[in-house]
């Protein structure tokens, strides 16, 4: 219930009477306090980490054969390897975040039927963006890592320095 302001009846050009001013000030301050309380609550509830971990381990070269796509289950990534090099892209559908599956033509999302080609580019369905590709790097131990903070152009294979001793013998 709105309290009845005397100022409501007063002519416009008259200064606001003090009592009405104090009452209005009280309303405003209470409103601001409520907003501040909401901010405090929001800060309390905001997750400590709202990003997935940046660098994830994919494995060794031996895990990925040439001309194949491998699903890295623990971090929802696909690793593509061809003669030219490696590519790593997300298995998370850009439409609404389900995990896509392999099909003959590429990938399909079981949730809403978004379809992608073998390089994660959209063919049909509700998705608008291609599956994001990430930079692939070799750690000091020789293993392959994906750098999720660095998105790269879709379909760009990186021929990272081939690898550990004895590989491909």
């Amino acid at each position: 219930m709105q309290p009845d302001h005397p100022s409501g009846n007063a002519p416009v050009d008259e200064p606001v009477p003090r009592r009405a001013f104090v009452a209005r000030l009280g309303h405003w301050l209470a409103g601001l306090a409520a907003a501040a309380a909401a901010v405090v609550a929001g800060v309390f509830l905001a997750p400590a980490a709202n990003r997935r971990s940046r660098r994830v381990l994919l494995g060794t070269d031996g895990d990925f054969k040439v001309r194949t796509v491998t699903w890295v289950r623990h971090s929802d990534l696909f690793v593509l390897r061809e003669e030219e090099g490696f590519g790593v892209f997300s298995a998370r559908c850009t439409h609404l975040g389900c995990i896509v599956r392999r099909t003959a033509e590429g990938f399909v999302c079981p949730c809403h039927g978004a379809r992608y080609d073998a390089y994660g580019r959209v063919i049909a369905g509700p998705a608008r963006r291609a599956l994001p590709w990430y930079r692939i790097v070799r750690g000091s131990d020789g293993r392959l890592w994906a750098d999720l903070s660095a998105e790269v152009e879709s379909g760009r294979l990186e021929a990272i320095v081939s690898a550990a001793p004895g590989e491909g013998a």
Partner: protein
Amino acid sequence: MSRFLAELGDALRAFPESLRRVFRPGVSGPDDPSSARLRRNLLFHLHPLKVRPRTLTFSATFALGLCTATLFFLLLLSGLFLMMVYTPDPQRAYACMQDLQWAIPGGAFFRALHRLAAHGMVVCAGLHLLRVMFAAAYRRRELNWFFGLSLLLLTAGLSFTGYLLPWDQRAFWAVNVSASMLENVPGGETLRGLLLGGPDIGADTLVRFYTLHVALLPALLAGLFFLHLWRIRKDGGLAGGEAQEASVPAWPDLVLREALVFLLVVLALVVLSALHDTPLGPPADPHRPDNPEKAPWYFLWLQEAVSHSAVAGGVVLPGLLIALLALLPFLDRGDEGVGRLLSSPLGRRWACGAFALALAVGAALQWWSIAGGDAPAHPDLLNPSSGMMALSLLALLVCGMRTGSVRLGVFCAMAVLLAAVLLFLVTGLCRGPEWRFFWPWEEWPVA
């Protein structure tokens, strides 16, 4: 000594009467006026003293509000029991569900009761809203219309938060998809973080959803529910009684009817829960959704709409629905026929016509989107959802112009949107692996 005994004897003799006085203070006798009964009882206080007979007939309200309230009561009750055996921890939640479903005596009954009552509450609240809308009963009851709308949204929120708790495949992925829908609205990323408590659905999410589901949302809903009832009294009873109609006392005419509906709803739920087998899917796998992965039926239309376009189907369509509902009391300012379902024959014809037309057009649009090979150039603009929204605006204009009534225009628009919801729900039911369309008699491939 003898006086002590005499007094004790009197006290014992008067015991039944004293007991009665404790529990029903102030009752003088059987010919107590009925209004006094209402005043004395806290629960009856929510009723007006007198009601108009027309609002008592079944076809005036279909008792939908009361059914919703009864189901809410059952949900609170069964929910309390479920809380005693459930732990909101991803390691244990699913095992708790297995125990509840298959080992604890009566566990399956309480779970079925809770689930069926939740579904029933969504249905009853939705139908209640439709009834009030098409009866134009929001007129002069704007505040209560908003209370009702908030109650419906809270009901949907409770269903949504409760859906995650079993921690099975369905639960996990339905919530994952819904949370991802937030990414399409401005500021959604922050909202999603607040809701999930992290970048992905995990232990934090489960605790948050649990707290929302068992404490915050039910408390809000209960508070609004009492405000909703209180406003009915303040607004002078239900809409639609004739002003000059002689009113009858709420006790017993209203209260007994309410008691009967309450009992019948509880009976129906108890019988259904005893017979019904609640599904429990395989445990959640955060790296692999089922194929197909379907939302609960009351969100299935949204999932179908979202499969056309995340923005048009997931944000604009529900936004338009809610906006139309919220604006309704401001758009429609006519006072005739309030409280009677589609009172004018003209309106009935228009609304039914629009509904039928929308079904046909929607089916054609769906067919085009399923069978049509090439995707259109602007899939976010050209899809069945946006088509239905355009049709609904068209219906608003055409019907409004031809009948000269804003109310009928909005009704036609709503009828079109309802047809869209119904149609998308049916199509959603027919979706198989990879969200491809299969007729109900067609076999799904193993995937």
